[in-house]
């Protein structure tokens, strides 16, 4: 048998293997005329093809990322340069800029807080949840497990359109006269429950809630699909322990999302009742705007429990896919198996499980009984152990490698650096004693921006550069990719590094101005530096966007099926796979996803569809 296999030429080798050993499900006999991609609307808009839905998620996510980042620049300008007039941006922001008699423009406080709130909401949910997990789960799950499509292409399409609708509603809140919601992305009541508490808590908050409930629907539809697909549609031979780490990470992410997002939704429903029907789940003994409210007996802390029961798993919903992408990209471009494959899977499971029992570490100073911190501190710091294992495994994956540097692998390395830097500061915050001082200071801002914001973006960029050839049949431009990488790496550290010092000095977050307090006023220079670094970093992202769209149409064409010499299944499909992914039979998996044994033919890897040699033993 081995002789037959080695005789075929390299170009159509994967075709030959699929022809020879593949599994015939008669897919194309049943899909004559291809009803899925028959006209423009069914191909590009209401598409049920997982690859097109992935692209829809990605491009929508990119648009939201630009909006969210641009918002941060506006409020950073207020923080860094409060003495400069903002009148020039009045054409864009209209009444949110007040221009006085001398022509000096000031950003309104309400709108400042709206920007802060929307920046968080957009980046956390629309970009790093939908844009990251939505894109790559959709793109890679069927391709890497050898499935024709998702288990339910129709639910998959709905998942995207609910996300789109959520975005449309959120965007519309920018245009209501009282402005978007302005109570922070965590939306703690009573501020979020009482329209009289702030301008944004009226219509803006209603739209915010509607948008996020639609978003929860989108996540759940997607999640059910991912889980079902991974469990049921793996091709012949693709045991769970043969799955690439990307699939493991998407699978675990979907489970975490499915278990935690409904809790957020229920928290939101109770909030809606408090807002609209006079219930008092979260409200008690409130006197506001000269008025005594009737509600008695509720507790704002209940909301915090419900919110963080999602909110904490949410950070792993964001970071696990980035970890999966990084693992895969690092392994492929180091030409080595990922170090400690099983340890990687078990550590992701451990992180996923622990993420459900640490939520109250966001609430040490919220007025809960201090005793419960004993429980939550222990579990929080235990998360450092599987996280450390993952970091050591990534570093060891590089050790002894033959690393091919390109935009994808550089971003993967950058991810590890960011994850280390941001993860270590979590050890401060997870320890409740230090959190007394650090809670709600810039130290927290620095921590979560680096560990889940920047790191997740790095994982996402690594994924985009790596799988762009699979999406569009072309490469992204490497030089622009590298310029983008160095600008982003240095820029991100320049923006968020200094914030640690603000935090340890006690500077509180979510402040419109630092002039009122002596204790917070020593950092004018640093605030200017951060703002300038943020603007520069943003400019580097434009290079990415240009590169992305330029490469879709004009990038260098992919000429071989497997340009990165990766063992996984997605590279056995045609360069631009049509609906159903494989033109004939489905591939059969013969080995695990990381076979980088040296081979006598000069190849340094073995594809998953390559049968075991006569004397070879299966690794998994």
């Amino acid at each position, binding site marked *: 048998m081995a002789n037959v296999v080695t005789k075929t030429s390299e170009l159509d080798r994967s075709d030959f293997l699929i022809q020879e050993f593949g599994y015939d499900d008669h897919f194309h006999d049943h899909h004559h005329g291809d009803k899925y991609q028959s006209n423009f609307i069914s191909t590009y808009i209401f598409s049920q093809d997982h690859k097109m839905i992935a692209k829809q998620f990605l491009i929508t996510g990119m648009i939201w990322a630009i909006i969210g980042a641009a918002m941060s620049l506006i409020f950073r300008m207020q923080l860094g340069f409060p003495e400069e007039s903002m009148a020039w941006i009045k054409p864009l922001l209209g009444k949110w800029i007040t221009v006085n008699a001398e022509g000096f423009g000031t950003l309104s406080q309400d709108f400042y807080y709206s920007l802060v709130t929307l920046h968080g909401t957009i980046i956390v949910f629309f970009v790093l949840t939908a844009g990251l997990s939505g894109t790559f789960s959709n793109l890679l799950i069927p391709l890497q497990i050898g499935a024709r499509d998702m288990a339910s292409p129709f639910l998959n399409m709905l998942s995207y359109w609910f996300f789109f609708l959520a975005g449309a509603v959120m965007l519309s809140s920018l245009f209501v006269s009282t402005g978007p919601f*302005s109570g922070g992305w965590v939306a*703690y009541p*009573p*501020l979020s429950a009482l329209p009289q*508490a*702030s301008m944004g808590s009226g219509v803006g908050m209603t739209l915010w809630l509607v948008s996020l409930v639609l978003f929860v629907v989108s996540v759940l539809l997607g999640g059910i699909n991912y889980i079902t697909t991974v469990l049921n549609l793996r091709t012949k031979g693709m045991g769970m322990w043969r799955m690439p780490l990307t699939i493991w990470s998407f699978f675990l992410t979907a489970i975490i999302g499915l278990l935690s997002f409904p809790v957020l939704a229920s928290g939101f429903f109770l909030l809606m009742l408090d807002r609209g029907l006079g219930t008092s789940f979260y409200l*008690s003994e*409130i*006197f*506001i705007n*000269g008025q005594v409210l009737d509600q*008695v007996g509720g*507790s*704002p*802390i209940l909301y915090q429990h419900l919110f963080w029961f999602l909110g904490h798993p949410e950070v792993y919903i964001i970071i696990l896919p980035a970890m999966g992408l990084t693992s895969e990209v690092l392994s492929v471009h180091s030409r080595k198996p*990922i*170090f400690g494959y099983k340890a990687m899977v078990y550590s992701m499971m451990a992180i996923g499980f622990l993420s459900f029992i640490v939520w109250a570490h966001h609430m040490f*100073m*919220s007025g809960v009984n*201090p*005793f419960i911190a004993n429980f939550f501190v*222990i579990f929080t*710091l235990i998360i450092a*152990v599987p996280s450390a*294992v993952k*970091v*050591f495994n990534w*570093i*060891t994956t*590089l*050790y*002894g*490698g033959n*690393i*091919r*540097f390109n935009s994808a692998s550089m971003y993967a390395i950058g991810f*590890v650096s960011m994850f*280390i830097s941001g993860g270590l500061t979590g050890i401060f915050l997870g320890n*409740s*004693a230090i959190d007394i*001082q650090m809670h709600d200071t810039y130290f927290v801002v620095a921590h979560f921006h680096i560990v889940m914001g920047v790191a997740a973006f790095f994982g996402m960029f690594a994924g985009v550069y790596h799988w762009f050839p699979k999406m569009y049949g072309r490469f992204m431009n*490497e*030089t622009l990719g590298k310029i983008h990488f*160095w600008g982003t*790496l*240095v820029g991100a550290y320049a923006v968020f*590094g200094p914030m640690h010092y603000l935090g*340890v*000095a006690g500077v*509180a977050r979510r*402040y419109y*101005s*630092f002039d009122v307090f002596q*204790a917070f006023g020593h950092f004018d220079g640093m605030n200017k530096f951060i703002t300038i670094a943020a603007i520069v970093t943003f400019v580097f992202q*434009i290079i990415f966007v*240009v*590169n992305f769209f330029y490469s879709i149409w004009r990038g260098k064409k992919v000429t071989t099926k497997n340009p990165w010499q990766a063992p996984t299944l997605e590279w056995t499909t045609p360069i631009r796979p049509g609906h159903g992914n494989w033109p004939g039979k489905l591939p059969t998996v013969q080995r695990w996803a*990381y076979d980088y*044994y*040296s081979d006598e033919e000069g190849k340094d890897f073995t594809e998953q569809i390559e049968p075991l040699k006569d004397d070879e033993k299966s690794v998994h």
Partner: protein
Amino acid sequence: MTGLLIILCFALIVIIALQIGKVTDITNKIKGEVEAQNSTNRRVGVYFLIFMVVFLIASFASAIYYRNYMLGFGPHESASEHGGSLDFIFKLTLWVTLIVFVLTQIALFYFAFRYRGNSGRKAMFFSHDTKLEVIWTGVPAVAMALLVIGGLDAWNEVMADVGPDEEYMEFEATGYQFAWALRYPGEDGKLGERDYTMINGSNPLGQDWTDEANWDDIHVNEIVLPVGKKVRVRITARDVLHSFFLPHFRVKMDAVPGMPTYFVFTPSKTTAEYRAQLSQYPEYQKPDPNDPEKQLWETFDYELACAELCGNGHFSMRKVVKIVKQEEYDKWLAEQKSYYLTAIRNTDQDPFNGELLPGETAPEEPVVEEENETETGGE
């Protein structure tokens, strides 16, 4: 005009980016794919090494430059007794994470440099090593255990409420949009009962005037506390969430409507002592921009801030905190007037309007002088 310039700048960036992209595509074609990748690997490997050096130097240099703003370093020493134990855990964590940070970042970037690819080389096959993995699971677990024990030990001591026989003083801070209302218990040492439905313009905290403990309660405009005496702050909120944050004392606790919280601490340095300590540092020897006659250390005050987003005025909820010697405190306290007797007594708000309070003798001439108006009550 500015808008146009910005658009032009962006267009320029786009054009430059596209040109760079085209040029490199062409040079790669000339060089050949394999050789181009090899030379890229060589270059990027070195860049990673350079980045590592610059990054580590920048981290250390900035840390040294800003050391005087860090917990427990330089002038940023805790002004409360429990603060020292938190600062110790902070420092301990700082050293542990610093070591891990330096080692892992060096390993990451050095391996990236050392194992940069070359078409003539092959990667080693190294897929797992149980011994290594056990070690690097075990070591972090032990380190975390130590930090947890140290941290929780400090936490449980700091967060404990006052014991039944302990001597302490109490005051109350109530957050509302957008200020803090401060109430001291007066001579009886007890804060009177409150009922939020009784809140109105002349009764900002909703004190129940039928409760005797309220009669001597004092409303003040700044927190004044004696040094070295245990204080229990009763923290409440009137409308939305706030957070009672005293950065210099390592004190923070959310103010929750409907659920009073507390924080117990002991100030250990008077304002004057803290100022003297600051005067030794050059960054405080500059003139104060708001009061150019004086230097920054001379105008320094402890501050109370809000640390939970509470609306558009969140950033402005400042109150001054003064820590003084016991004699000064006693003197200050003696000067304060009961809010009830000065603002409520014998108005229509007073449930005992026209009646005699127990211990009161002459209704026409109350013990406390009526014309002495408080400057601090209400808002």
